[in-house]
């Protein structure tokens, strides 16, 4: 599903953010990426959702070397990846419903039953009464749930979430993680980047631990992450 081989990454000529990172995430797996702020969690996810190119090494997604993908191929591949961004990245001029439906529209799926599906999902994340609300009128937690709904609406094969519990209380954080587990049980490969070690310890999933630019993988809380280095 996701394979990193000796991947290094840095922004332009800056210091290395990730160095010599190798792992393999199998289809249907659930991983946490744990690390302090600035450890490279977001950069790692950006490499996974094809927003950055590695400075060295090779990445393959869904069995394809991403270095060989054309711009249009990347667009198609991104439709199989759902992303929950740390800053949500909702479109302020679109309602919650329209934001969530965006991946479906982009993929050219326009039949009317989608409406029902989107409303159902918004209700499931507790926003049934806010489907027509614009993001600026929603709280941080509500915006986060819209972002999560948008990431999962197209049933992605790979779900990446960058600090998805950063703006919600512990109870809701747990609920969201259970939601991710549900998706994982349906076959979606899930990668969640977080700095919340206590939360991670409550789940029996492997951890990719980022500890600065030297040695990236330090095992897991319960199990080691993927194939390791």
């Amino acid at each position: 599903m996701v394979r990193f081989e000796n991947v290094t990454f840095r922004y332009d000529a800056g210091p290395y953010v990730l160095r010599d990172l190798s792992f393999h995430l199998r289809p249907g797996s659930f991983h946490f990426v744990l690390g302090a702020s600035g450890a490279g969690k977001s950069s790692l996810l950006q490499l996974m959702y094809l927003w950055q190119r590695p400075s060295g090494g090779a990445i393959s997604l869904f069995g394809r070397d991403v270095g060989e993908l054309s711009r249009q191929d990347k667009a198609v591949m991104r439709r199989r990846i759902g992303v929950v961004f740390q800053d949500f990245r909702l479109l302020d001029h679109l309602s919650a419903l329209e934001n969530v439906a965006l991946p479906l529209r982009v993929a050219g799926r326009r039949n009317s039953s989608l409406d029902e599906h989107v409303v159902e999902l918004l209700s499931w994340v507790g926003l049934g009464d806010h489907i027509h609300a614009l993001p600026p009128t929603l709280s941080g937690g509500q915006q986060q749930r819209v972002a999560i709904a948008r990431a999962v609406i197209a049933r992605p094969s790979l779900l990446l979430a960058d600090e998805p519990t950063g703006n919600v209380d512990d109870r809701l954080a747990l609920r969201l993680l259970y939601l991710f587990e549900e998706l994982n049980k349906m076959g979606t490969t899930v990668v969640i980047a977080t700095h919340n070690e206590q939360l991670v310890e409550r789940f029996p999933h492997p951890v990719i631990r980022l500890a600065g630019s030297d040695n990236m993988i330090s095992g897991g809380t319960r199990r080691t992450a993927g194939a390791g280095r």
Partner: protein
Amino acid sequence: MIVGRRDVPLDNDASARFLPWLIGFMVYLAALALAAAIAVSNLTERWDKGLSDQVTVQVPPDIESDGGQDARVQAVLEVLRGKVGVVRARPVEPARMRELLEPWLGSQAATGDLPLPSLIAVTVDRGDPPDLDALRAELREAAPGATLDDHQRTLGRLLEIAHSLQLLAMLVVALIAGAAVVTVVFVTRTGLAVHRQVIELLHLIGARDGYVASQFQRHALRLGLAGGVAGLALAAATLFGLSKVFESGGEAAVIPDLSLSPLQWAILGATPVAAALVAMLTARFTVLRTLARLS
């Protein structure tokens, strides 16, 4: 319910306000230039058609004898009427000639004191015209000094001027189209810069460049059409006003006829559609080119 607002909020941009005005102004100018080209084309066609079967024979005045001029004109008429290929030969009445000359020679021409040449209007068979050079020689024999003017020199010069005017009008249309393209390119690039984050997000959730381009091209098409229709309406009003002014001025023989045929109106009517299509294609091409450079 889902397909409502546009993903890229281009309607909120300043371009959404000023682009229709710009395109409207450009379509207004282009429509007037096009109408001018069409009117000149109508005029040249009229001249061409009107003069292609007409020749004029001029018999210089005989100032030495009183009754000699009539005899010279009769001799010329006899030559003309006996010629194969001449449909009709008719002397221009002296009163009509004085009327024609009055604007240039003043009222003195109307007194009849001024010795004037006699003119004979000749209609020739377009399908089987006479040999004009041979006819000229025969006319000179019948009435020394008689000349035949087939108007080709004057007509050629007029057609040359008319074609130059048409070219100029088309050049103006081309320049306006060029200005419209540059404007739309600028507006589109500005839109891409302003909405960079939205476009990034669309790409992140799997949008192809074509999807992003479609947002911009629909926007440009809509604005182009709105501005274009307004510009055309103004141009039509201007042309209508001008045609009324010319009609009342009685200069119809010289000034191009501004009453256009239905087909010519249809061509003018296509101006906003053409402007909108140019705007749409320019926007699409600009977006695709700009995004391709990002990869």
